[in-house]
């Protein structure tokens, strides 16, 4: 039996505006840019992809299922800039074939710095999803699939989750493969789903690469690879950025057509089906325990945290940010707290990454900055102002 489990990550950060040390107001975010990016991505990806998946779900009458993890900060943006996307997500939720996962509302790295803050953000996300889509999420995925044993233990102790997901990195699996359900070390109930990065990346990264020996990737071919898992696995976890459809892979690469035909090709094999992460957790028992003492993520080839915390600027910025936690919360000011939380989005630290920078291969997708240095300077200026706000000593407005 090979159960195909699609999960799509849907996220856009709230980008900062250009904010110099001379700026003294509390308008940190670039509404114009955020709105235009949100609408652009909605038109190229969210709307056509949602409609396509809705079609497929209706066509297969309950045999095709997917899961989404939509961050709170994106939901807020969609509600104000692109409400039509929300109505298509509503329609998807009503099919009963779509599961919504839990994560930190602000797409943050809070697990690493403050467990209290982390739990608050997860709860806020669950409540929001419940309010919007009428589902209480039973499966957790952490920002950037960052994971270790401690995270699993914390999630299990929250008592509301059946499973957690992370990257099926080679070095945690050893000779094992990601196509089974595992148990995190130290947990007794929680189950662990691992991303099959090879098959996921075939779609997410290699799909349009003409130098790839398997190009062009057809639905037939991919379905065959899925069926090959039979006999050596129960599940194939395909975890993708939703922007794969229409943004990372443009429409003219044929990515939508590929997806349109994939379900029927996969279901043609009688042993295959589609399941959501929650169903996987219910259907399959763990075959082994996975021990992850060190933090992993789904990023780059290193599968570590270096993309967000790899250099001195990143580490300085995030430490300064979380150092303010007590002060911020003590103000009790909703706006200050919300601003502080929006600054926690992992993207802000990603923009400061200097890895690969010299090779010109910047982490530049929707990156609003020319250089990681500019991004750090901007972030620190905003943080400085936020700090002043919570101390109540507002600097004189320079008009």
């Amino acid at each position: 039996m090979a159960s195909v489990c699609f999960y799509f990550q849907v996220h856009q950060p709230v980008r900062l505006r250009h904010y110099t040390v001379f700026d003294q107001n509390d308008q940190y975010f670039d509404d114009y840019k955020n709105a235009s990016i949100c609408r652009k991505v909605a038109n190229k990806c969210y709307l056509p992809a949602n409609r396509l998946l809705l079609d497929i779900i209706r066509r297969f009458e309950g045999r095709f299922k997917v899961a989404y993890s939509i961050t709170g900060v994106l939901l807020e943006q969609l509600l104000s800039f692109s409400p039509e996307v929300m109505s298509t997500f509503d329609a998807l939720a009503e099919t009963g074939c779509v599961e919504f996962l839990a994560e930190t509302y602000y797409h943050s790295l809070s697990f690493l710095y403050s467990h209290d803050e982390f739990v608050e953000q997860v709860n806020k996300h669950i409540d929001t999803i419940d309010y919007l889509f009428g589902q209480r999420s039973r499966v957790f995925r952490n920002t950037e699939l960052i994971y270790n044993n401690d995270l699993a233990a914390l999630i299990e102790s929250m008592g509301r989750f059946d499973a957690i997901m992370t990257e099926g990195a080679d070095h945690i699996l050893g000779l094992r493969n990601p196509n089974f359900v595992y148990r995190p070390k130290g947990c007794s109930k929680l189950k662990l789903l691992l991303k099959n990065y090879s098959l996921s990346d075939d779609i997410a990264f290699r799909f349009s690469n003409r130098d790839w020996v398997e190009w062009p990737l057809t639905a037939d071919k991919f379905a065959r690879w899925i069926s090959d898992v039979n006999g050596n696995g129960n599940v194939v976890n395909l975890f993708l950025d939703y922007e794969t459809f229409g943004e990372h892979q443009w429409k003219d690469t044929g990515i939508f057509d590929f997806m349109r035909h994939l379900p029927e090709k996969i279901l043609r094999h009688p042993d295959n089906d589609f399941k959501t992460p929650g169903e996987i957790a219910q259907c399959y028992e763990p075959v082994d325990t996975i021990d992850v003492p060190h933090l992993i993520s789904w990023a780059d080839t290193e599968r570590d945290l270096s993309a967000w915390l790899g250099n001195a600027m990143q580490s300085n910025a995030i430490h300064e940010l979380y150092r303010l936690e007590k002060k911020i919360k003590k103000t009790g000011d909703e706006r200050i707290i919300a601003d502080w939380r929006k600054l926690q989005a992992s993207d802000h630290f990603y923009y400061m990454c200097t890895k690969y920078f010299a090779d010109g291969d910047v982490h530049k997708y929707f990156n609003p900055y020319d250089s990681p240095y500019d991004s750090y300077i901007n972030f620190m200026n905003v943080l400085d102002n936020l700090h002043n706000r919570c101390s109540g000593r507002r600097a004189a407005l320079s008009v």
Partner: protein
Amino acid sequence: MLGWEFPPFISGGLGTACYGLTKAMGQLGIKVTFVLPRMVESKYATHVNLLTPDSQMSAETVEFGELKNVSFRTINSPLQPYSTPGVYQQRIEENLRQKHGGSATGTVIGGIDYSSNMYAEVQRYAAVAARLAENEQFDIVHAHDWMTYPAGAAVAAMSGKPLIVHVHSTEFDRSGEHVNQMIYDIEREGMHRADRVIAVSYFTRNTIISRYGISGEKVEVVHNGVESNGNWSLAETGIKKDEKIVLFLGRITMQKGPEYFLQAAKKVLEVMDNVKFVMAGAGDLMHRSVEMAAELGIGHKVLFTGFLCSEDVRKIYKMADLYVMPSVSEPFGIAPLEALENDVPVIISKQSGVSEVLKHALKVDFWDVNEIANKVIAVLKHPPLEVMLRNYGGFEARKLRWKDSARKCAKIYEETLVAV
């Protein structure tokens, strides 16, 4: 090779570039004969004079120990790379005064149009260089910047060898839109006459194509390198300081944007106090800049050093926490690389060639004084930023070797020789 300045007789980046390039070429085994117009007393040449030529038309050979395969011929001429006719006139007067026993009154020279003399000087240099070339063996003529283009053209015409002109700056960089028509004409003619044109950056290449009408396929880009000066310890300068130092180093002229540096300084001082701004260099806007600092009310925070010799430059780099180059138009800009070599982080103008090769530098529009100040403050305030710019930037600068520039030139030589 035809040049017009060479260390220690330098007033800007050109001499440094010629030095680095010829040294690296020598190491590659390329034989270079370097022809140089040399003035008797340059007020900038604070080092000892090597040789004083006696006769007006003689050519000399000077040896530099560390330069393999490079020999020098100098022609006595008051040419200076960054001259304007006015400056040129001053220099001739100075010369005359010295000849007349240093008397301050000297010979009265007035009412003569010296721009025609500067033109004549360029032509005279061309004539002498051409005569000099009769006795030399060479395969290619390589001329550095406009003063040597007529000489290059003359030598090339006489010898039938191909001509390469190397553009380190153009009249548009030096004078903005108020170009000196004579210099522009010389530049344009030299570039058109040349078999190949070497530009120090894509920035300059664009100017050459759009302003001088040169076909793009003729223009190659060879970025400059940086000369490694070895390690200098901080103890050597004996400096202790509790104030941050922000450095401007270069000629204080319109091209280098000194007024933007001062306006940014004013803004920085509104936010933080323990900063001093050092303007190292001389130039025609020097007095204007001193006045401007006073007008802005920051006179006590801005120090002017005048022109610095290379030893003092190194000392000032050791003191500096940050180097700012707000150039209005900078074909390349070697100074930021030297700053990084000396472990000083840099903020550079986007309107510069060097910004094409540096990633680990902060970049600004020269006119955006708000942003310059914003970045200066950020570097001084956040040690992680300063450390990263210093370390990664330094690493990046040290990778830019003159040897690579020399190799590129050698390749262009080969291509040119095959084509001829």
